């Protein structure tokens, strides 16, 4: 009876761990999506009104970026936007490629004339859009595989236990 109960517990835990791992994988898509939206708004503000970065950071209100600490980190270091960007970027669960693109954008943030700053934002936005589309295509089967793998591991452990 105890063994059966233990086996059930192992299977349940494995299923929950698989679910959590799949969800973490989904966070990457959410982060890319939110960052893509933010860059689009930043690009529009710079183009339309030459709004200073610190004002853009202060006015931004994306819930996800706020909750992840990305926006608070940007606002906290608005006097040095490049350092603030590097710090804020670490708060997001991005794939290596998207992270590298965003980090490169941040290294010249606020140091470029209008046309070049706009072009840099547009380039990052396109890169993030590609990353987002690619993730959106790959994500559901990947999440399914992760959940299945965790569940199988749990079942195997339960069988061994019994």
């Amino acid at each position, binding site marked *: 009876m105890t063994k059966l109960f233990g086996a059930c517990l192992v299977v349940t835990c494995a299923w929950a761990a698989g679910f959590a791992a799949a969800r973490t994988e989904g966070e990457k898509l959410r982060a890319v999506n939110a960052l893509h939206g933010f860059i689009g708004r930043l690009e529009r503000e*710079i183009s339309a009104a*030459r*709004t*200073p970065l*610190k004002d853009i950071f202060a006015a931004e209100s994306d819930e996800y970026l706020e909750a992840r600490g990305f926006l608070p980190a940007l606002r906290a270091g608005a006097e040095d936007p490049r350092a603030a960007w590097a710090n804020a970027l670490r708060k997001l669960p991005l794939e290596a490629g998207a992270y590298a693109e965003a980090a490169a954008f941040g290294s010249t943030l*606020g140091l470029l*004339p*209008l046309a070049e*700053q706009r072009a840099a934002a547009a380039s990052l936005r396109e890169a993030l859009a590609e990353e987002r589309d690619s993730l959106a295509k790959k994500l559901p089967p990947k999440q399914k595989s992760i959940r299945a793998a965790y569940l199988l591991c749990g079942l195997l452990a339960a069988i061994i236990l019994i």
Partner: protein
Amino acid sequence: MGDILTALGRYLPPRIAAAAASLPPEILARADEIRLSRDSAASVTCAGKNVMFDKNGAPSPPDRALRPTKSEMEECLSRLCGGSLYTCEAELAQGFIPLPEGGRAGVCGRAEIRNGAVAGFSEIYSVDLRFHRFIRDAAAPLMRVWAETRLCGVLVISPPGAGKTTFLRSAAYLLANGKGIAPVRTAVADERCEISVCLPRSGLLDILTGVPKAEGITMLTRCMSPQAILCDEISGAEWESVLEAQSCGAALIASAHGDGPQDVLARPGMKKLAGSGAFRLTAVLRRGEPPEIKEFSV
């Protein structure tokens, strides 16, 4: 405190700010300029003298002076632009960056030319941060002259750094507030936001900033019906606007670089201006001496 570091320290990279903060207090209190030159030297201008300093803030010869690095110059530029270079691109193309509290930082470096005009700088080599002071009675001698005669055009002449802008700032205050003469409707055409920095907003004072001088003088003449218009660093190119102002009865009080009237008259545009009778007086400024106010004989 009211010293140069309190006003401008936040624009300096930490290493340079720390060194400047260690400068002898008598230098800090009287300094009116901080200059940074990439890989060359950091210095302050104090009572007309250039003082280079080392990493400990001690006055030092050029070979031991603190040398701002490329990244420090970039950091300084970023701080001056509030972290967003694109917000001051147009001014930067003219060689300066306006500061939020008024005033400006002069910059120079590798210029980028587009369509035959300077579009900006790809690299900044030097930054000149000037500290502005308000000395209420700097132009009091001019008020005494006007009290005896009447309000008329004055050309303020001095070499760079001898107090032209401080003199104009004082004149604007004294005129607008009627100190020494009856209050006068005073307009300031302040293209680079230099005269209006730390100028108390009181009396009959109208300030137009950010507009090129010639256009500003015309706008003020047409719209504000001033009795006196003040502007800094006038050149011969502004002569048409000045004449228009004169025809409306406004007295022009302007400044020009030079050692004296003869220096100014050597420039063709200025000769034309002076010949028009726009300036009846000259006020020649020299560091440490009272202004020399004379009839302007062309």
